[in-house]
């Protein structure tokens, strides 16, 4: 507890400093701007194994107040946000161009009249420089026009300070195995602070040609896995850039097209189904993944929107010989909207929606012998259902007080563990038998060199290739307190993942190293100090049931408690 108190004191000092500076900033800033209207990027920091996150709005093209109407609707997913704008009597085009590259924050009542600061000349011959994104009052990014292109720069900078009761996780807890009590790592605290999830993104949209709109989106964070020779200090402070989203998007009256690295269609990533939490996505049992892909989609309807999409994606195993395929259908009721936050991004307004999606893939795994020359085939597949329900609706991000929203996800599948962040459950390939009793280092025991990542498939006792079955569940409630238009809100999450066959496909001696069931709960409290600056605190509990039984015959379990403080400024 002493360490915890020290940690808290440090956090208090940091927070006080931040609050002081934000107050200072308020005095110098421009007049109040409208509240956020669209969700800011969903946040995630993954371990070195499985990357995966997604800006909820990163796919939206930029559009400025004076931009062509067509450019304002760069992505179908933004239609809902446009709709609420209209409902709230806040025409997206009504706001005059803001000439300065700066954040608009609500001024206190006694604030002096706004001071408009002249913009510095844009580097690329920009004609104007202003706040941007699909809505003029959205805080997402700054946009300027260069050579006829709309250029949007967006992202955030911040820090997450984390304390764990065990030394099991990196900055993301995800689906990693918890260290057992009784071991040094299971008995002791760890503290981390990371700015590696800070993010920068760039969207470029050329002028439309007829009804065809195109855009390019590139987005990076600093979560590149550090080289093994890095020291702990270096890996924290000298983090490398990581590719999150790099894709092109073309929208035509017939069909829309995405090519590049983007959220998986399985689980409808990036469409508003991520939970509100201070934890880095993906949390336990949540589908959270990005991949290079080619996706075709078609959206029809206005009040009730239906999107049908199919994609071919980079396979999880290149030796499989075929790409993964994903397909899904999503329905959104655009007149039924509610407040929605994705991870610890900025809350916005989203339409009630439901999505169903599926994935199929093929494996060709090297035969389970020392020097395989043939492969064994297997098939992986899964299905997921997602839902976003505005229980107490909200139609304006500026006034989201008393809004209550529910987000849920259920998924089941086999051979899809890579779709969940850092999930193996401890499943490994077994050691090869050693019938010749080779033990000498000059003639060592035979070993198996798999041609696929661990945790997805394995060989059972009869040397049959088996896929790991998992099913995940996520439920998330977010409630915006009736304080200052909902700028204080709370969120709670329950999620779990379990496997029906991981024990069956793991040798008995390895049962102590696998878990069959993992359970995650969190509670988060967020405060939007300004439109751009958010502070959040959270308490998270992860509990796992292992394959082995203890001396009394009960299952071996382990628990990690995490406290987290996050401070972020969005642009």
């Amino acid at each position, binding site marked *: 507890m002493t360490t915890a108190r020290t940690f808290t004191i440090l956090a208090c000092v940091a927070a006080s400093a931040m609050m002081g500076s934000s107050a200072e900033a308020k005095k110098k800033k421009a007049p109040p701007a409208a509240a956020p209207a669209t969700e800011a990027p969903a946040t995630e920091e993954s371990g070195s194994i499985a990357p995966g996150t997604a800006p909820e709005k990163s796919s939206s093209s930029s559009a400025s107040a004076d931009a062509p109407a067509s450019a304002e609707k760069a992505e179908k997913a933004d239609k809902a946000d446009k709709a609420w704008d209209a409902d709230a009597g806040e025409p997206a085009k009504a706001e005059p161009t803001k000439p300065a590259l700066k954040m608009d924050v609500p001024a206190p009542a006694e604030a002096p009249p706004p001071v408009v600061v002249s913009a510095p000349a844009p580097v690329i011959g920009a004609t104007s420089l202003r706040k941007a994104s699909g809505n003029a009052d959205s805080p997402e990014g700054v946009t300027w026009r260069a050579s006829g292109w709309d250029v949007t720069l967006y992202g955030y900078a911040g820090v997450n300070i984390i304390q764990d009761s065990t030394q099991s996780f990196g900055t993301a807890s995800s689906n990693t195995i918890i260290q057992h*009590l009784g071991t040094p790592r299971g008995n002791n605290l760890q503290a981390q602070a990371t700015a590696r999830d800070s993010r920068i993104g760039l969207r470029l949209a050329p002028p439309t040609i007829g009804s065809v709109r195109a855009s390019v989106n590139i987005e990076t964070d600093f979560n590149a896995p550090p080289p093994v020779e890095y020291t702990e200090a270096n890996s924290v402070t000298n983090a490398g850039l990581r590719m999150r989203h790099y894709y092109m998007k073309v929208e035509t009256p017939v069909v829309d097209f995405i090519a590049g690295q983007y959220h998986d269609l399985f689980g409808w990533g990036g469409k508003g189904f991520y939970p509100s939490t201070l934890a880095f996505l993906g949390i336990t049992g949540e589908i959270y993944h990005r991949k290079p892909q080619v996706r075709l989609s078609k959206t029809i309807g206005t009040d009730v929107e239906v999107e049908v999409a199919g994609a071919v994606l980079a396979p999880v195993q290149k030796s499989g010989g075929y790409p993964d395929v994903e397909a899904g259908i999503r329905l959104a009721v655009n007149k039924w909207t509610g407040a929605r936050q994705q991870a610890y991004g900025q809350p916005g307004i989203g339409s009630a929606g439901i999505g169903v999606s599926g994935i199929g893939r093929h494996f060709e795994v090297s035969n389970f012998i020392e020097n395989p020359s043939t492969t064994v085939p297997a098939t992986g597949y899964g299905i997921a259902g997602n839902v976003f329900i505005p229980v107490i609706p909200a139609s304006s991000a500026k006034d989201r007080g008393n809004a209550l929203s529910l987000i849920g996800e259920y998924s089941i599948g086999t051979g899809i563990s890579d779709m969940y962040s850092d999930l193996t459950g401890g499943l*490994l390939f077994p050691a090869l038998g050693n019938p010749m009793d080779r033990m000498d*280092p000059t003639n*060592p025991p035979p070993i198996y060199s798999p041609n696929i990542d661990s945790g997805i498939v394995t060989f059972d006792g*009869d040397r049959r290739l088996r896929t790991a079955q998992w099913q995940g569940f996520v439920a998330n409630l977010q409630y915006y307190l009736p*304080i200052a238009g909902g700028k204080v809100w709370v969120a709670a999450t329950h999620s779990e993942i379990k496997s029906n066959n991981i024990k069956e496909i793991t040798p*008995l001696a390895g*049962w102590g190293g696998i878990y069959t069931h993992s359970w995650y709960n969190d509670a988060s409290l967020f405060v939007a100090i300004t439109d751009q600056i958010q502070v959040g605190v959270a308490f998270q509990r992860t509990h796992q049931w292992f394959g082995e039984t203890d001396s009394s015959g009960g299952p071996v379990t382990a628990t990690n408690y995490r406290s987290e403080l996050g401070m972020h400024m969005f642009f």
Partner: protein
Amino acid sequence: MNSRHARSALLVSLTIVGLFGCKNEQLCKPLGACGGDLLAGAVDFAKKDGLIDRSWTVTQASEGACQDQLQLPPTNISLARQPPNLSTQRPNDPATADWCGNLVLKSTGEVKEFIVYAPPLPLKVAELTVSADFDGNKDRGTYVMQTTIDETRDLVFSESCITAQGIRLSCPTLGRRLGEFLAAEANIYNMRCQDPDDKTQGGCVCKFDLSFIGGQTGRWAKQNGGTQIQFFENVSYSPAALADYCVLPDASQPGGVGALDLTGSNETPLFNQKGLRTLHMTPPSCNDGVQSLELGEEGIDCGGGCPTKCGTCTNHVHDANEEGIDCGGACLGILCDETVADPNQKPAACANKKQDPWEEGIDCGGPCPTECNP
């Protein structure tokens, strides 16, 4: 939102972080560390060497021992025996255990190699005897910690494990062969294998009794003003084990010594036994399931100062320390017929006049000492 609201919310938030940020509670809660005189009123019973002794016992049934849940997977021997990687070479992928336990059969059907997986097991019984030092000092001296750890473990061999080497032993024969191979292992008893319930699956389902009987001897000395004991071990190179202790008074006897609580200091294991955290030990009695030296017991809870006379494993009687008639319990290595519930009627499995699933004939082969006639 105004800054007053923001500050209030932030303070509440930070309080939450401060309140909940704490260490995991240990599975075994530390016992007392009050110290006390270990040898108050003790007599010389152990070696009859003029130095006073005292003993305490603990049993699994009394739940006096607390161990961590440390069922960690074993080190993979195949990977451990690989030559080191070149710096430019990708390291070998991690792997879990071998499905076949590294089973190697000779062409005769004998077992050439087999690795038994033995995780940390629950402590069944233990007796600690402390003696005063050679000069009569009662703050240091010698000790003997006698422990018995046992459990029935499962093994599953798939059909491919058994047939991989071109020989297909029947399951009872495989059990016998494994038993022969492991005969040198004094801690393994009653290796037996039988067909699985669903015979179409193939393979064999096996069980064995793992029983470690042993202990430590060495020297002890009080530390830190008499609230801790340092246990030095004579034989191994293990580091000295420091334990917090508390001698509790005997409620039934004014001034008498009652139970002894031991807790590994600073979360270290007691007596260097992996996962063993606390022991609540009581003075020996004639019904504690331990063969007490202090009471002069000749068997478990019998003979010596106890009213029950000790039986034998050949007297055709269900004695107190047996699970059936001349089987189980003190009759180590003699299986009982588990299909009979009444201990007074329960015969030894190898003497029940029927062929059990792990026997190769009626009361022969498999784990039975009698070989079947060819």
